[in-house]
Protein backbone atom coordinates (compact mmCIF):
# COMPACT_ATOMS: atom_id res chain seq x y z
CA UNK A 1 0.00 0.00 0.00
CA UNK A 2 1.27 3.42 -1.01
CA UNK A 3 0.16 5.63 1.82
CA UNK A 4 1.28 8.79 0.17
CA UNK A 5 4.88 7.62 0.31
CA UNK A 6 6.13 10.64 -1.52
CA UNK A 7 4.39 13.00 0.77
CA UNK A 8 4.59 11.40 4.17
CA UNK A 9 7.98 9.90 4.86
CA UNK A 10 8.83 8.63 8.30
CA UNK A 11 11.14 11.54 8.84
CA UNK A 12 8.32 14.01 8.24
CA UNK A 13 6.13 12.31 10.77
CA UNK A 14 8.93 12.33 13.31
CA UNK A 15 9.51 16.01 12.82
CA UNK A 16 5.76 16.67 12.94
CA UNK A 17 5.36 14.83 16.23
CA UNK A 18 8.47 16.27 17.83
CA UNK A 19 7.54 18.95 20.36
CA UNK A 20 11.02 20.04 21.38
CA UNK A 21 11.08 23.22 19.23
CA UNK A 22 7.37 23.85 19.52
CA UNK A 23 7.23 26.70 21.99
CA UNK A 24 7.58 30.45 22.12
CA UNK A 25 10.81 32.12 23.19
CA UNK A 26 10.33 34.75 25.82
CA UNK A 27 13.64 36.40 25.06
CA UNK A 28 13.41 36.20 21.30
CA UNK A 29 15.22 38.92 19.38
CA UNK A 30 12.81 38.56 16.48
CA UNK A 31 9.41 36.96 16.08
CA UNK A 32 7.12 36.87 13.10
CA UNK A 33 3.75 35.29 12.33
CA UNK A 34 3.05 33.59 9.02
CA UNK A 35 -0.46 32.83 7.82
CA UNK A 36 -1.71 30.82 4.88
CA UNK A 37 -5.22 32.02 4.14
CA UNK A 38 -5.99 29.16 1.78
CA UNK A 39 -5.72 26.49 4.48
CA UNK A 40 -5.44 28.33 7.79
CA UNK A 41 -1.91 27.25 8.63
CA UNK A 42 -0.63 29.76 11.17
CA UNK A 43 2.95 29.62 12.40
CA UNK A 44 5.00 32.04 14.49
CA UNK A 45 8.80 31.87 14.41
CA UNK A 46 10.98 33.05 17.30
CA UNK A 47 14.67 33.83 16.68
CA UNK A 48 17.32 34.68 19.18
CA UNK A 49 20.42 36.21 17.64
CA UNK A 50 23.78 37.16 18.96
CA UNK A 51 25.46 39.45 16.50
CA UNK A 52 25.28 37.57 13.25
CA UNK A 53 24.61 34.21 14.79
CA UNK A 54 21.26 32.59 15.36
CA UNK A 55 21.57 31.12 18.82
CA UNK A 56 18.07 29.74 19.16
CA UNK A 57 14.97 29.18 16.98
CA UNK A 58 11.54 27.90 17.94
CA UNK A 59 8.05 27.99 16.48
CA UNK A 60 4.50 27.61 17.60
CA UNK A 61 1.12 27.65 15.88
CA UNK A 62 -1.26 25.35 14.13
CA UNK A 63 -0.95 23.61 10.84
CA UNK A 64 -0.82 20.40 8.95
CA UNK A 65 1.94 17.84 9.31
CA UNK A 66 3.87 19.20 6.35
CA UNK A 67 3.75 22.73 7.66
CA UNK A 68 4.79 21.84 11.20
CA UNK A 69 7.39 19.26 10.17
CA UNK A 70 8.95 21.83 7.90
CA UNK A 71 8.98 24.39 10.71
CA UNK A 72 10.58 21.89 13.06
CA UNK A 73 13.29 21.07 10.51
CA UNK A 74 13.86 24.80 10.09
CA UNK A 75 14.53 25.14 13.81
CA UNK A 76 16.85 22.14 13.91
CA UNK A 77 18.88 23.25 10.95
CA UNK A 78 19.32 26.87 11.98
CA UNK A 79 20.57 26.68 15.52
CA UNK A 80 24.05 28.14 15.53
CA UNK A 81 23.89 29.23 11.89
CA UNK A 82 24.66 32.72 10.68
CA UNK A 83 22.08 34.96 9.09
CA UNK A 84 23.83 34.48 5.76
CA UNK A 85 23.60 30.72 6.14
CA UNK A 86 19.89 31.05 6.96
CA UNK A 87 19.39 33.02 3.80
CA UNK A 88 21.27 30.45 1.79
CA UNK A 89 19.12 27.70 3.24
CA UNK A 90 15.92 29.51 2.33
CA UNK A 91 17.16 29.61 -1.25
CA UNK A 92 17.90 25.89 -1.25
CA UNK A 93 14.51 24.98 0.19
CA UNK A 94 12.73 27.09 -2.41
CA UNK A 95 14.85 25.67 -5.20
CA UNK A 96 13.85 22.18 -4.12
CA UNK A 97 10.15 22.87 -3.60
CA UNK A 98 9.35 25.46 -6.21
CA UNK A 99 11.82 24.72 -8.99
CA UNK A 100 11.94 20.99 -8.24
CA UNK A 101 15.71 21.06 -8.16
CA UNK A 102 17.70 18.20 -6.64
CA UNK A 103 17.97 18.78 -2.89
CA UNK A 104 21.43 19.88 -1.77
CA UNK A 105 21.75 20.69 1.91
CA UNK A 106 24.73 21.29 4.19
CA UNK A 107 25.50 19.06 7.16
CA UNK A 108 22.93 19.27 9.90
CA UNK A 109 20.16 20.17 7.46
CA UNK A 110 19.94 16.88 5.57
CA UNK A 111 16.56 16.09 7.10
CA UNK A 112 15.14 18.70 4.76
CA UNK A 113 15.59 16.33 1.84
CA UNK A 114 12.63 14.44 3.21
CA UNK A 115 10.24 17.16 2.09
CA UNK A 116 11.46 17.06 -1.52
CA UNK A 117 8.45 14.89 -2.40
CA UNK A 118 6.12 17.75 -1.46
CA UNK A 119 7.08 19.51 -4.68
CA UNK A 120 4.88 17.04 -6.52
CA UNK A 121 1.87 18.26 -4.55
CA UNK A 122 1.57 21.94 -5.49
CA UNK A 123 -1.18 22.64 -2.96
CA UNK A 124 1.04 21.44 -0.13
CA UNK A 125 4.12 23.37 -1.23
CA UNK A 126 2.65 26.43 0.44
CA UNK A 127 2.38 24.48 3.68
CA UNK A 128 6.03 23.45 3.55
CA UNK A 129 7.13 26.98 2.63
CA UNK A 130 5.16 28.88 5.24
CA UNK A 131 7.85 28.87 7.93
CA UNK A 132 10.56 29.55 5.37
CA UNK A 133 8.73 32.55 3.99
CA UNK A 134 8.28 33.77 7.52
CA UNK A 135 12.00 33.32 8.13
CA UNK A 136 12.65 35.28 4.98
CA UNK A 137 10.71 38.21 6.45
CA UNK A 138 12.81 38.07 9.61
CA UNK A 139 16.04 37.94 7.62
CA UNK A 140 14.94 40.99 5.65
CA UNK A 141 14.23 42.74 8.91
CA UNK A 142 17.63 41.85 10.31
CA UNK A 143 19.36 43.04 7.18
CA UNK A 144 17.50 46.33 7.12
CA UNK A 145 18.53 47.14 10.67
CA UNK A 146 21.65 49.27 11.19
CA UNK A 147 24.52 46.92 11.96
CA UNK A 148 25.36 48.43 15.35
CA UNK A 149 23.68 45.53 17.15
Amino acid at each position, binding site marked *: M*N*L*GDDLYREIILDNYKSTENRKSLDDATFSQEGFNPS*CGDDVTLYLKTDGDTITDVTYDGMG*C*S*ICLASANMLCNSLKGATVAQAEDLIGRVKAMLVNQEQPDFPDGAEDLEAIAGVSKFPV*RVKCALLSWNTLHQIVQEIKSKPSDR
Partner: protein
Amino acid sequence: MIDQVKDTDLGVRADFPVLSRLMRGKPLVYLDNGATSLKPQSVIDAEVAYLRDNGATIHRGVYEFSERATTMYDDARVRIKRFVGCPEDGEVVFTKSATESSNIIARSWGAKFLRPGDRVVTTEIEHHANIIPWQEVARATGAELAFIPIGPRGEIDPGDVARTINDRTRIVAVTGMSNVTGAMPAVREIAQIAHAAGALVVVDGAQLVSHHPVNLAELDADFVIWSSHKMCGPTGVGFLYARKCLLEQMDPFLYGGDMIVKVTKDRATYAQAPEKFEPGTPNISGVIALTAAIDYLEAIGMDRIADLEDRLLARAEEALGEIPGVTLYVPDSVGRRGGILSFNVDGVHPHDVGSMLDSEGIAVRAGFHCAQPFMRHMGVGGTVRASFYLYNTAADVDALVAGVRRAKEFFQ
Protein backbone atom coordinates in the same frame (compact mmCIF):
# COMPACT_ATOMS: atom_id res chain seq x y z
CA MET B 1 -28.84 -7.66 -1.66
CA ILE B 2 -29.38 -6.71 -5.27
CA ASP B 3 -31.89 -4.12 -4.11
CA GLN B 4 -29.40 -2.65 -1.74
CA VAL B 5 -26.93 -2.20 -4.55
CA LYS B 6 -29.61 -0.56 -6.66
CA ASP B 7 -30.49 1.64 -3.75
CA THR B 8 -26.96 2.92 -3.52
CA ASP B 9 -26.06 3.02 -7.21
CA LEU B 10 -28.07 4.81 -9.86
CA GLY B 11 -26.12 3.02 -12.58
CA VAL B 12 -25.01 6.24 -14.27
CA ARG B 13 -21.26 6.03 -13.81
CA ALA B 14 -20.59 5.16 -17.43
CA ASP B 15 -22.07 8.53 -18.43
CA PHE B 16 -19.19 10.35 -16.76
CA PRO B 17 -15.90 9.85 -18.58
CA VAL B 18 -13.80 11.22 -15.72
CA LEU B 19 -14.93 8.36 -13.51
CA SER B 20 -12.93 5.90 -15.58
CA ARG B 21 -9.71 7.87 -15.06
CA LEU B 22 -7.10 7.01 -12.46
CA MET B 23 -5.97 9.45 -9.80
CA ARG B 24 -2.56 8.80 -8.23
CA GLY B 25 -2.79 5.53 -10.09
CA LYS B 26 -6.00 4.50 -8.34
CA PRO B 27 -9.59 4.44 -9.62
CA LEU B 28 -11.08 7.85 -8.94
CA VAL B 29 -13.48 8.16 -6.01
CA TYR B 30 -14.90 11.63 -6.50
CA LEU B 31 -16.38 13.07 -3.33
CA ASP B 32 -15.85 16.78 -3.92
CA ASN B 33 -19.27 17.44 -5.41
CA GLY B 34 -19.90 20.29 -3.03
CA ALA B 35 -17.17 22.14 -4.92
CA THR B 36 -18.11 21.13 -8.44
CA SER B 37 -19.78 18.24 -10.24
CA LEU B 38 -18.34 16.11 -13.00
CA LYS B 39 -19.87 16.46 -16.46
CA PRO B 40 -21.70 13.72 -18.32
CA GLN B 41 -20.68 12.96 -21.90
CA SER B 42 -23.90 14.51 -23.22
CA VAL B 43 -22.94 17.90 -21.80
CA ILE B 44 -19.47 17.68 -23.33
CA ASP B 45 -21.07 16.68 -26.63
CA ALA B 46 -23.49 19.60 -26.54
CA GLU B 47 -20.67 22.05 -26.02
CA VAL B 48 -18.62 20.48 -28.80
CA ALA B 49 -21.62 20.47 -31.13
CA TYR B 50 -22.07 24.20 -30.78
CA LEU B 51 -18.35 24.89 -31.19
CA ARG B 52 -17.96 22.56 -34.15
CA ASP B 53 -21.19 23.19 -36.03
CA ASN B 54 -22.12 26.72 -35.18
CA GLY B 55 -19.77 28.96 -33.18
CA ALA B 56 -21.74 32.12 -33.92
CA THR B 57 -22.73 34.86 -31.53
CA ILE B 58 -26.28 35.47 -30.36
CA HIS B 59 -28.94 38.17 -30.67
CA ARG B 60 -27.42 40.41 -33.27
CA GLY B 61 -26.57 38.26 -36.26
CA VAL B 62 -28.86 38.39 -39.29
CA TYR B 63 -27.63 35.00 -40.48
CA GLU B 64 -28.76 31.46 -39.90
CA PHE B 65 -26.00 30.29 -37.54
CA SER B 66 -26.48 33.27 -35.28
CA GLU B 67 -30.23 32.75 -35.34
CA ARG B 68 -29.78 29.14 -34.36
CA ALA B 69 -27.35 29.99 -31.57
CA THR B 70 -29.83 32.59 -30.33
CA THR B 71 -32.64 30.04 -30.32
CA MET B 72 -30.52 27.56 -28.37
CA TYR B 73 -29.49 30.23 -25.90
CA ASP B 74 -33.04 31.42 -25.34
CA ASP B 75 -34.20 27.84 -25.07
CA ALA B 76 -31.73 27.24 -22.24
CA ARG B 77 -33.47 29.95 -20.26
CA VAL B 78 -36.87 28.38 -20.83
CA ARG B 79 -35.46 25.03 -19.74
CA ILE B 80 -33.76 26.22 -16.56
CA LYS B 81 -36.89 28.13 -15.58
CA ARG B 82 -38.95 24.99 -16.00
CA PHE B 83 -36.35 22.93 -14.12
CA VAL B 84 -36.67 25.06 -10.99
CA GLY B 85 -40.40 25.72 -11.35
CA CYS B 86 -39.97 29.43 -11.96
CA PRO B 87 -43.30 31.17 -11.37
CA GLU B 88 -44.93 33.40 -13.99
CA ASP B 89 -43.89 36.58 -12.23
CA GLY B 90 -40.26 35.45 -11.95
CA GLU B 91 -37.29 35.60 -14.30
CA VAL B 92 -33.89 33.92 -14.50
CA VAL B 93 -30.83 35.98 -15.43
CA PHE B 94 -27.69 34.25 -16.67
CA THR B 95 -24.60 35.32 -14.74
CA LYS B 96 -21.11 33.87 -14.53
CA SER B 97 -21.55 32.20 -11.14
CA ALA B 98 -23.65 32.06 -7.99
CA THR B 99 -21.09 34.47 -6.60
CA GLU B 100 -21.81 37.05 -9.29
CA SER B 101 -25.55 36.55 -8.78
CA SER B 102 -25.23 37.28 -5.10
CA ASN B 103 -23.25 40.44 -5.79
CA ILE B 104 -25.89 41.62 -8.23
CA ILE B 105 -28.53 41.39 -5.52
CA ALA B 106 -26.38 43.12 -2.93
CA ARG B 107 -25.43 45.95 -5.22
CA SER B 108 -28.25 46.44 -7.70
CA TRP B 109 -30.92 46.01 -5.03
CA GLY B 110 -29.08 46.48 -1.74
CA ALA B 111 -26.91 49.49 -2.51
CA LYS B 112 -29.88 51.18 -4.13
CA PHE B 113 -32.56 50.58 -1.53
CA LEU B 114 -30.89 50.04 1.85
CA ARG B 115 -30.92 53.04 4.17
CA PRO B 116 -28.95 53.74 7.34
CA GLY B 117 -30.48 51.76 10.16
CA ASP B 118 -32.07 49.19 7.87
CA ARG B 119 -31.27 45.62 8.79
CA VAL B 120 -29.97 42.75 6.70
CA VAL B 121 -30.38 39.41 8.42
CA THR B 122 -28.20 36.43 7.62
CA THR B 123 -26.52 33.50 9.37
CA GLU B 124 -23.06 32.38 10.29
CA ILE B 125 -23.45 29.20 8.28
CA GLU B 126 -23.40 31.05 4.97
CA HIS B 127 -20.83 30.58 2.25
CA HIS B 128 -18.66 33.68 1.85
CA ALA B 129 -20.54 34.43 -1.36
CA ASN B 130 -23.72 35.06 0.61
CA ILE B 131 -22.14 37.02 3.40
CA ILE B 132 -19.30 39.29 2.22
CA PRO B 133 -21.42 41.12 -0.39
CA TRP B 134 -23.85 41.98 2.42
CA GLN B 135 -21.05 43.08 4.74
CA GLU B 136 -19.84 45.46 2.08
CA VAL B 137 -23.22 46.84 1.15
CA ALA B 138 -24.14 47.26 4.82
CA ARG B 139 -20.97 49.25 5.38
CA ALA B 140 -21.62 51.36 2.26
CA THR B 141 -25.25 52.14 3.08
CA GLY B 142 -25.13 52.32 6.85
CA ALA B 143 -27.40 49.32 7.17
CA GLU B 144 -26.85 46.85 9.98
CA LEU B 145 -25.94 43.20 9.50
CA ALA B 146 -27.62 40.92 12.02
CA PHE B 147 -27.11 37.21 12.51
CA ILE B 148 -29.76 34.68 13.38
CA PRO B 149 -28.59 32.82 16.50
CA ILE B 150 -27.63 29.26 15.62
CA GLY B 151 -27.02 26.02 17.46
CA PRO B 152 -23.60 24.40 18.01
CA ARG B 153 -23.64 22.79 14.55
CA GLY B 154 -25.40 25.66 12.83
CA GLU B 155 -28.96 24.59 13.60
CA ILE B 156 -31.49 27.31 12.78
CA ASP B 157 -34.69 27.56 14.75
CA PRO B 158 -37.31 29.52 12.78
CA GLY B 159 -38.37 31.07 16.07
CA ASP B 160 -34.96 32.73 16.24
CA VAL B 161 -35.48 34.05 12.75
CA ALA B 162 -38.56 35.88 13.90
CA ARG B 163 -36.66 37.27 16.87
CA THR B 164 -33.80 38.53 14.70
CA ILE B 165 -36.05 40.29 12.22
CA ASN B 166 -37.14 43.75 13.26
CA ASP B 167 -39.34 46.23 11.44
CA ARG B 168 -36.32 47.74 9.73
CA THR B 169 -35.34 44.39 8.22
CA ARG B 170 -35.27 44.62 4.43
CA ILE B 171 -33.38 41.46 3.50
CA VAL B 172 -33.13 37.97 4.95
CA ALA B 173 -30.31 36.07 3.19
CA VAL B 174 -30.02 32.42 4.07
CA THR B 175 -28.63 29.31 2.48
CA GLY B 176 -30.97 26.64 1.18
CA MET B 177 -28.41 23.98 2.01
CA SER B 178 -25.17 24.34 3.90
CA ASN B 179 -22.06 23.45 1.92
CA VAL B 180 -20.43 22.39 5.21
CA THR B 181 -23.03 20.21 6.91
CA GLY B 182 -25.66 19.64 4.24
CA ALA B 183 -28.24 21.16 6.60
CA MET B 184 -31.31 22.49 4.85
CA PRO B 185 -32.78 25.39 6.81
CA ALA B 186 -36.57 25.64 6.67
CA VAL B 187 -36.42 28.19 3.90
CA ARG B 188 -40.14 28.27 3.22
CA GLU B 189 -40.96 28.97 6.83
CA ILE B 190 -38.22 31.58 7.02
CA ALA B 191 -39.62 33.21 3.88
CA GLN B 192 -43.08 33.40 5.45
CA ILE B 193 -41.70 35.03 8.58
CA ALA B 194 -39.61 37.44 6.54
CA HIS B 195 -42.45 38.36 4.23
CA ALA B 196 -44.78 38.93 7.15
CA ALA B 197 -42.24 41.48 8.38
CA GLY B 198 -42.02 43.08 4.96
CA ALA B 199 -38.52 41.79 4.20
CA LEU B 200 -37.27 40.21 1.00
CA VAL B 201 -35.76 36.73 1.06
CA VAL B 202 -32.53 35.73 -0.67
CA VAL B 203 -31.88 32.01 -0.85
CA ASP B 204 -28.42 30.72 -1.65
CA GLY B 205 -29.42 27.72 -3.74
CA ALA B 206 -25.91 26.79 -4.92
CA GLN B 207 -26.14 23.44 -3.16
CA LEU B 208 -29.90 23.12 -2.86
CA VAL B 209 -30.73 23.33 -6.55
CA SER B 210 -28.00 20.86 -7.52
CA HIS B 211 -29.01 18.18 -5.06
CA HIS B 212 -32.74 18.45 -4.41
CA PRO B 213 -35.88 18.97 -6.44
CA VAL B 214 -36.71 22.66 -6.17
CA ASN B 215 -39.92 24.44 -7.03
CA LEU B 216 -39.38 28.17 -6.83
CA ALA B 217 -43.08 28.91 -6.92
CA GLU B 218 -43.51 26.95 -3.70
CA LEU B 219 -40.25 28.11 -2.12
CA ASP B 220 -41.55 31.66 -2.30
CA ALA B 221 -38.15 33.36 -2.13
CA ASP B 222 -37.64 36.72 -3.80
CA PHE B 223 -34.12 36.04 -4.98
CA VAL B 224 -32.35 32.70 -5.51
CA ILE B 225 -28.80 32.18 -6.73
CA TRP B 226 -27.12 29.03 -8.00
CA SER B 227 -24.46 27.76 -10.43
CA SER B 228 -24.41 25.51 -13.47
CA HIS B 229 -21.12 23.80 -12.65
CA LYS B 230 -22.50 22.17 -9.52
CA MET B 231 -25.38 20.58 -11.44
CA CYS B 232 -23.51 18.73 -14.21
CA GLY B 233 -23.33 21.85 -16.38
CA PRO B 234 -20.36 23.91 -17.60
CA THR B 235 -18.31 26.31 -15.50
CA GLY B 236 -18.78 30.02 -16.05
CA VAL B 237 -22.58 29.99 -15.94
CA GLY B 238 -24.57 31.10 -12.92
CA PHE B 239 -28.18 32.00 -12.30
CA LEU B 240 -30.05 34.77 -10.61
CA TYR B 241 -33.71 34.17 -10.05
CA ALA B 242 -35.79 37.13 -8.98
CA ARG B 243 -39.31 38.41 -9.18
CA LYS B 244 -39.71 40.48 -12.32
CA CYS B 245 -40.92 43.48 -10.37
CA LEU B 246 -37.69 43.49 -8.36
CA LEU B 247 -35.54 43.24 -11.46
CA GLU B 248 -37.42 46.22 -12.83
CA GLN B 249 -36.68 48.33 -9.76
CA MET B 250 -33.01 47.41 -9.73
CA ASP B 251 -30.29 49.27 -11.59
CA PRO B 252 -28.25 47.33 -14.11
CA PHE B 253 -25.15 45.70 -12.68
CA LEU B 254 -22.92 45.78 -15.75
CA TYR B 255 -23.24 48.26 -18.60
CA GLY B 256 -22.44 47.58 -22.24
CA GLY B 257 -23.85 46.25 -25.46
CA ASP B 258 -27.06 44.24 -25.93
CA MET B 259 -28.80 45.68 -22.88
CA ILE B 260 -29.87 49.02 -24.17
CA VAL B 261 -32.80 50.71 -25.83
CA LYS B 262 -31.02 53.88 -26.86
CA VAL B 263 -27.56 55.30 -26.29
CA THR B 264 -26.59 58.91 -26.80
CA LYS B 265 -23.29 60.51 -25.92
CA ASP B 266 -24.53 61.38 -22.49
CA ARG B 267 -26.96 58.73 -21.42
CA ALA B 268 -28.42 55.36 -22.14
CA THR B 269 -31.80 53.79 -21.55
CA TYR B 270 -31.98 50.13 -20.72
CA ALA B 271 -33.88 47.09 -21.89
CA GLN B 272 -35.96 45.01 -19.53
CA ALA B 273 -34.70 42.00 -17.63
CA PRO B 274 -33.20 39.57 -18.39
CA GLU B 275 -31.34 41.54 -21.13
CA LYS B 276 -30.83 44.46 -18.74
CA PHE B 277 -28.54 42.27 -16.67
CA GLU B 278 -26.74 40.47 -19.50
CA PRO B 279 -24.65 42.97 -21.44
CA GLY B 280 -21.76 41.85 -23.60
CA THR B 281 -21.12 38.51 -25.18
CA PRO B 282 -22.19 35.86 -22.68
CA ASN B 283 -20.82 32.37 -22.14
CA ILE B 284 -22.72 31.10 -25.17
CA SER B 285 -21.21 27.63 -25.34
CA GLY B 286 -21.71 27.19 -21.61
CA VAL B 287 -25.33 28.25 -21.62
CA ILE B 288 -26.11 26.06 -24.61
CA ALA B 289 -24.44 23.02 -23.05
CA LEU B 290 -26.35 23.66 -19.85
CA THR B 291 -29.49 22.47 -21.60
CA ALA B 292 -27.94 19.03 -21.92
CA ALA B 293 -27.23 19.02 -18.17
CA ILE B 294 -30.87 19.79 -17.44
CA ASP B 295 -31.99 17.06 -19.85
CA TYR B 296 -29.69 14.69 -18.09
CA LEU B 297 -30.77 15.53 -14.54
CA GLU B 298 -34.43 15.44 -15.53
CA ALA B 299 -34.03 12.04 -17.09
CA ILE B 300 -32.51 10.72 -13.86
CA GLY B 301 -34.90 12.63 -11.61
CA MET B 302 -33.85 15.00 -8.86
CA ASP B 303 -35.88 13.08 -6.28
CA ARG B 304 -33.97 9.90 -7.06
CA ILE B 305 -30.71 11.81 -6.71
CA ALA B 306 -31.77 13.22 -3.36
CA ASP B 307 -32.86 9.76 -2.18
CA LEU B 308 -29.55 8.25 -3.22
CA GLU B 309 -27.68 10.96 -1.35
CA ASP B 310 -29.81 10.28 1.75
CA ARG B 311 -28.69 6.67 1.72
CA LEU B 312 -25.03 7.39 1.01
CA LEU B 313 -25.02 9.98 3.75
CA ALA B 314 -26.56 7.59 6.25
CA ARG B 315 -24.06 4.91 5.36
CA ALA B 316 -21.10 7.28 5.65
CA GLU B 317 -22.35 8.74 8.90
CA GLU B 318 -22.79 5.36 10.47
CA ALA B 319 -19.46 3.94 9.37
CA LEU B 320 -17.37 7.05 10.08
CA GLY B 321 -19.15 7.51 13.39
CA GLU B 322 -17.92 4.12 14.47
CA ILE B 323 -14.28 5.14 14.13
CA PRO B 324 -13.01 6.32 17.53
CA GLY B 325 -11.58 9.80 17.35
CA VAL B 326 -13.62 10.85 14.35
CA THR B 327 -15.87 13.86 14.94
CA LEU B 328 -18.82 14.32 12.61
CA TYR B 329 -20.21 17.84 12.20
CA VAL B 330 -23.82 16.80 11.97
CA PRO B 331 -26.51 19.25 13.01
CA ASP B 332 -29.22 18.09 15.40
CA SER B 333 -32.73 17.47 14.21
CA VAL B 334 -32.81 19.88 11.31
CA GLY B 335 -34.84 17.53 9.16
CA ARG B 336 -33.56 16.31 5.85
CA ARG B 337 -29.99 17.09 4.88
CA GLY B 338 -28.21 17.13 1.57
CA GLY B 339 -25.43 14.66 0.82
CA ILE B 340 -22.58 16.53 2.48
CA LEU B 341 -20.63 15.32 5.48
CA SER B 342 -17.94 17.25 7.34
CA PHE B 343 -15.67 15.52 9.82
CA ASN B 344 -12.30 15.62 11.51
CA VAL B 345 -9.92 13.00 12.79
CA ASP B 346 -8.62 13.84 16.27
CA GLY B 347 -5.09 15.15 16.16
CA VAL B 348 -4.84 15.02 12.39
CA HIS B 349 -5.05 18.18 10.33
CA PRO B 350 -7.84 18.11 7.71
CA HIS B 351 -5.29 18.69 4.95
CA ASP B 352 -3.38 15.63 6.00
CA VAL B 353 -6.52 13.53 5.92
CA GLY B 354 -7.25 15.00 2.49
CA SER B 355 -3.78 14.23 1.18
CA MET B 356 -3.88 10.69 2.53
CA LEU B 357 -7.20 10.11 0.80
CA ASP B 358 -5.80 11.69 -2.38
CA SER B 359 -2.98 9.18 -2.39
CA GLU B 360 -5.64 6.48 -2.60
CA GLY B 361 -7.53 8.16 -5.44
CA ILE B 362 -10.19 9.69 -3.21
CA ALA B 363 -11.05 13.34 -3.84
CA VAL B 364 -12.43 15.25 -0.86
CA ARG B 365 -12.08 18.82 0.26
CA ALA B 366 -10.24 19.96 3.36
CA GLY B 367 -10.30 23.42 4.86
CA PHE B 368 -12.76 26.22 5.54
CA HIS B 369 -15.11 25.55 2.62
CA CYS B 370 -15.44 29.32 2.15
CA ALA B 371 -17.29 29.45 5.46
CA GLN B 372 -14.85 30.94 7.95
CA PRO B 373 -17.53 32.39 10.26
CA PHE B 374 -19.09 28.93 10.53
CA MET B 375 -15.71 27.32 11.26
CA ARG B 376 -15.11 29.89 13.98
CA HIS B 377 -18.58 29.26 15.38
CA MET B 378 -17.88 25.54 15.57
CA GLY B 379 -14.43 26.22 16.95
CA VAL B 380 -12.60 24.28 14.28
CA GLY B 381 -9.72 25.28 12.06
CA GLY B 382 -11.27 23.44 9.14
CA THR B 383 -12.90 20.12 8.33
CA VAL B 384 -12.64 17.30 5.86
CA ARG B 385 -15.69 17.30 3.64
CA ALA B 386 -17.08 14.43 1.59
CA SER B 387 -19.99 15.36 -0.67
CA PHE B 388 -22.04 13.03 -2.82
CA TYR B 389 -23.79 13.18 -6.14
CA LEU B 390 -25.71 10.96 -8.49
CA TYR B 391 -22.74 8.87 -9.63
CA ASN B 392 -21.54 7.97 -6.15
CA THR B 393 -22.18 4.53 -4.76
CA ALA B 394 -21.88 2.56 -1.54
CA ALA B 395 -18.45 1.47 -2.76
CA ASP B 396 -17.33 5.11 -2.76
CA VAL B 397 -18.51 5.49 0.81
CA ASP B 398 -16.72 2.32 1.82
CA ALA B 399 -13.49 3.50 0.17
CA LEU B 400 -13.77 6.77 2.05
CA VAL B 401 -14.29 5.03 5.37
CA ALA B 402 -11.37 2.67 4.81
CA GLY B 403 -9.20 5.62 3.80
CA VAL B 404 -10.07 7.57 6.91
CA ARG B 405 -9.28 4.55 9.06
CA ARG B 406 -5.87 4.24 7.44
CA ALA B 407 -5.15 7.96 7.78
CA LYS B 408 -5.97 7.74 11.44
CA GLU B 409 -3.68 4.79 11.98
CA PHE B 410 -0.93 6.37 9.96
CA PHE B 411 -0.79 9.54 11.97
CA GLN B 412 -1.12 7.83 15.34
